[in-house]
């Protein structure tokens, strides 16, 4: 329905944020995430950051699964 991509905010200038993912950069608009800070992660759709990505939440999910599968997966 809607493709959106996760990237990290590495610089902010007004309505724009420079975002990065594994060496790939993209300028995104942050009109609806005015409180976003450098170092935080966002989800981008059609060039607009539409929501923050809570990295702690993601890590917690993974941690639970790592425990369940302990010894079977490689380290993150």
């Amino acid at each position, binding site marked *: 329905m809607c*493709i959106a*991509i996760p990237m990290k905010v590495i610089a902010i200038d007004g309505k724009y944020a420079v975002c990065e*993912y*594994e*060496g*790939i*950069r*993209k300028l995104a608009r942050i009109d609806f995430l005015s409180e976003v800070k450098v170092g935080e992660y966002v989800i981008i*759709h*059609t060039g607009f950051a539409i929501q923050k990505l809570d990295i702690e939440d993601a890590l917690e999910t993974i941690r639970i699964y790592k425990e369940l599968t302990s010894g079977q997966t490689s380290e993150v």
Partner: protein
Amino acid sequence: MVEKVNLKDKILISYGTGGKYTQEFINNYVLKHFKSKILSELLDSAVLNFEMDSKIAFTTDSYTVSPIFFPGGDIGKLSICGTINDLLCVGAIPKYISVSLIIEEGLEFEVIDKILSSIEEVANEENVEIVTGDTKVVEKGSCDKVFITTAGIGVVNKNICLHYNRISPGDVVIISGNIAEHGLAVLLSRGGFGFDCKIQSDCSSLKPMLEQLFNKEISSHIKFMRDPTRGGISAVLNEVVHKRKDVSIEIEEELVPLSGSVKNLCELLSFDPLNIANEGKVVIIVDKNFAEETVKVLRQHPLGKNARIIGEVTTENKGRVILKTTYGTKRIVDMPIAEELPRIC
């Protein structure tokens, strides 16, 4: 008297009219770069010598890439490498190439000079001779800067017999290196939809790598080769199963070599790297008993350092190319319909 042109000057319609301007262009530009005895005769056709008992391979191609300069190459290098690779993929060693230029009026001589230099450089390195050609200048807007049409002639190696008909179940599919670099490099140099990433085109002549392979005894066990240009690996493999509806090809997702940047950019743009153009890779189908050794020979050359076996010819889903996912499930790899476009959904 036609004045000697300056590199900063622009190409005028007059340079394509066959008169003194054209002579000036040929003498000062074309012949400067292409030092061929045959070409310097400036006859209506190049007259070539061949050993009579050899098979001759003959190919033609046109190049319209935009932009004409991109990371890793330009339209000149692309045109010569592309022609060389097409000849190699039928087992031929390239010998003679023709180059025709269609130039948009107003293009700087400097640009044409750079492109001719790129052609010269590859031709010298790969020991092929530019023996004939043509130049036309068209009105502004009639073409995009410059289009190049080439034809190439090569002598087929006697050891090698490449044909769809030789493919049989059990044969192994090899790719000579990381895929999808050319297509993405060109896309990025067109603006890349705002994505900024360092990806170089893989544009290169496969001759030094494939020559090593052709000189080995194993080359007689190679059944089929093709360079996966437009449409990528998907197109090449689908062409095989369209010609040979009695077999299928199964590749493994995890085995397909691609660089981190290519993988990630494809992910961000939702592109399938299998569908994206390469300009310095070859897909090889070979008897399974000689597959490992083929990979070993390819890897001896820097162009083939990431060569890998990516799959095999089977009969399980005749007429289809199948991809085995990381989870062991299978899905179809279709012939790409058209160029990949960025999507919102």
